[in-house]
């Protein structure tokens, strides 16, 4: 047997390229889908909770109660609506017409005037946790503003904090979502495309045909994956252009390092796809496994929305098996923090080891199946 021959791998790659070019639907989607989805969801995803309907039951109807409602509405987070007669504020929470309710007691204005300490009841819809937690976070600020306006004097700020947000001073959600979205979409497309293309060869029986030729397994694999790698990297480039030009995401770090991270990540995702297709050999099952091991974990466990550090200990280790977790850390680090290789050594190592591991597993399985 002779060693790896780049020309044979090239021949396989050329065949694969022709195959893709003949199918303009797949080609446009593979190139266009990442940009489309990043643009759309870059606009759509916003973590700042605002414009929340607040059902108000005002039993006081005095000037202070009116002012309190104004303060809620001018905060921009709440949109006060008077409670509907009959159902009441709790009924509005039940039916989802409001997410929070404010009860103002009959003597509210009088008590404020006489100067004691006054209470207003605030009820939250806990069936949506993230919203409820965000609304609770807004309360101290509203309380301060309300007290200043209602009693005419600001509460004494004996101790306070002055917060400085580094890397993203205005807490622009886009800067945070867009690099993450790109990671998810690119990773998924790579997994799905490779899983399907290799599984197809098995399903058609053309894999046996290929293997009976002098082409070696490694050459087949490199030849089949390289075109998809190139396709996905072209997608990365478009996504980069969109996130810089449309969303103004800053790029503090080194482009070369970013390219290296993308290459590693795409390799990891392609290896995952390859492993899946070697394991199952049917396109439908391959798609199913690709979606199960790719789509949901990369959206939910990679730190895209739910920070990995907030998970229970076991899952903090478990997520180390997911390439998108490492790429997410690397991409955010490079774009927003300007991190260098020194800070990102762990994510790079993680990506490298995962690619190597999956590639080896796939090759071993491939070879044992041949013998």
């Amino acid at each position: 047997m002779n060693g790896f021959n780049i020309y044979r791998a090239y021949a396989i790659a050329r065949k694969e390229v022709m195959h893709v070019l003949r199918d303009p639907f797949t080609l446009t989607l593979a190139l266009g889908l990442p940009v489309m989805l990043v643009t759309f969801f870059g606009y759509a995803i916003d973590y700042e909770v605002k414009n929340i309907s607040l059902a108000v039951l005002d039993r006081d109807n005095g000037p202070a109660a009116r002012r309190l409602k104004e303060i809620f509405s001018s905060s921009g987070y709440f949109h006060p609506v008077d409670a509907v007669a009959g159902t009441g504020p709790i009924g509005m929470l039940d039916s989802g017409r409001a997410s929070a309710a404010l009860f103002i007691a009959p003597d509210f204005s009088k008590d404020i005037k006489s100067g004691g300490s006054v209470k207003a009841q605030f009820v939250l819809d806990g069936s949506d946790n993230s919203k409820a937690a965000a609304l609770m976070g807004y309360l101290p600020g509203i309380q301060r503003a309300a007290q200043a306006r209602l009693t005419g004097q600001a509460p004494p700020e004996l101790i306070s904090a002055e917060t400085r947000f580094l890397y993203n001073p205005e807490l622009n959600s886009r800067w945070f979502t867009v690099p993450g979205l790109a990671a998810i979409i690119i990773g998924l497309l790579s997994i799905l495309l490779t899983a399907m293309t290799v599984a197809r060869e098995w399903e058609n029986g053309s894999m046996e045909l290929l293997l009976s030729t002098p082409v070696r397994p490694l050459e087949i694999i490199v030849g089949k994956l390289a075109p998809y790698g190139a396709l996905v990297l072209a997608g990365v480039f478009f996504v980069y252009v969109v996130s810089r030009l449309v969303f103004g995401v800053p790029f503090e770090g080194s482009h070369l390092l970013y390219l290296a991270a993308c290459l590693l990540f795409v390799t990891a995702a392609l290896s995952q796809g390859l492993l899946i297709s070697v394991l199952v050999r049917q396109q439908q099952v391959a798609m199913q496994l690709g979606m199960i091991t790719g789509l949901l974990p990369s959206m939910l466990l990679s730190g895209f929305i739910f920070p990995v550090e907030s998970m229970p200990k076991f899952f903090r280790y478990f997520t180390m098996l997911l390439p998108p977790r490492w790429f997410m850390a690397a991409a955010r680090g490079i774009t927003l923090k300007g991190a260098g290789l020194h800070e990102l050594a762990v994510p790079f190592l993680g990506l490298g080891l995962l690619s190597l591991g999956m590639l080896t597993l796939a090759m071993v399985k491939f070879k044992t199946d041949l013998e």
Partner: protein
Amino acid sequence: MNRTLRAFIRKELVQTLRDVKMRVLLFGAPVIQLTIFGLALSTEIKNINLAVFSRPGDAMFERVAENFYASGWFDRVTYVQGEDPFELIDSGRADAVLIAPKGGLAWSAARGDGKLQLLVDASNATKARAVEAYAKSIISAASAREYGARGAPALNFDVRVLYNPAMESSMFLVPGVMGMLVCLITIILTAMSLTREREMGTFETIVSAPLSNTEILLGKTVPYILLGLANAALVVTAGYLLFGVPVRGPLWELALAALAFVVTTVSVGTFISTVAKSQQQAMLGGFMFLFPAILMSGIMYPVENMPKAIIAVAYMDPLMYFVRLIRNIMLKGGDLHVFWSNLGALALMAVFAAGMAYKRFRQTLN
């Protein structure tokens, strides 16, 4: 229902369930995924690495800092004397740094300037927002404690949380993940079904069988609707047993919601499989539906936050209605107004999607 059709449906079911891999993926994977996501995910931000900087002997500041660590949200970061606070954040060792005022906190507060500095790594915007909210509440509580009535505000909110008083994330997330899993399974099952038949050449056999177009379509969809419903029942049971997610509303509401949703997704999947020319295209089509459907469903972040134009698109997402329905039925007891309005929307979509699938299907057959 005639015998041929019944036999056809049975054949489809047997064919799908015969494969061990398929059985595992259909019934094992959803339960495993529900368990993993239910345990791992939390909307609460925890384990924030916090470093504190102060001059030695600043007793009041140390008490405030102690309150941070006692809250359970923050972990202590140790550093060497003389390190730069910014460097701690740059290197990723700390997520936030709390810095005491120069002359000590008690001294500054007495002069009306008790300002602590909080540096936050905002490369993760959600986390940064949570850190600031935690810090504010801890500091205002500390202020009230240190200065008694002088530091306490005159207006207080008495806060109550309904439906999920302990604010457990799993109550909120598990119903969402359930909807997502049912959506995923039904689309995967159907998006390739006809495409594969055509690729393998078995499609002609079906067409030449003594079955009308409607019967073929029913034979190709009813089994998957049944499987989807079985899956929905499975995840609801798993959510109830494993995570104690309550089912406060009537079961028939849940069953109707699942039926309307599964009919919609199976029709969408079938539509994709009639349009796609190869299984690869079918897979891309399925991805094109699933990815937006999941992101716009309100499972991960509220739909109300989105810009108006995009909310309009979210109203076309069947998964959004289904997630609203299961959350409302399971957690809130299934308010009838919410139930009928969302079910109505879902049913309309089911009819539309089934109609589209039927139309395309006839074209494909002829």
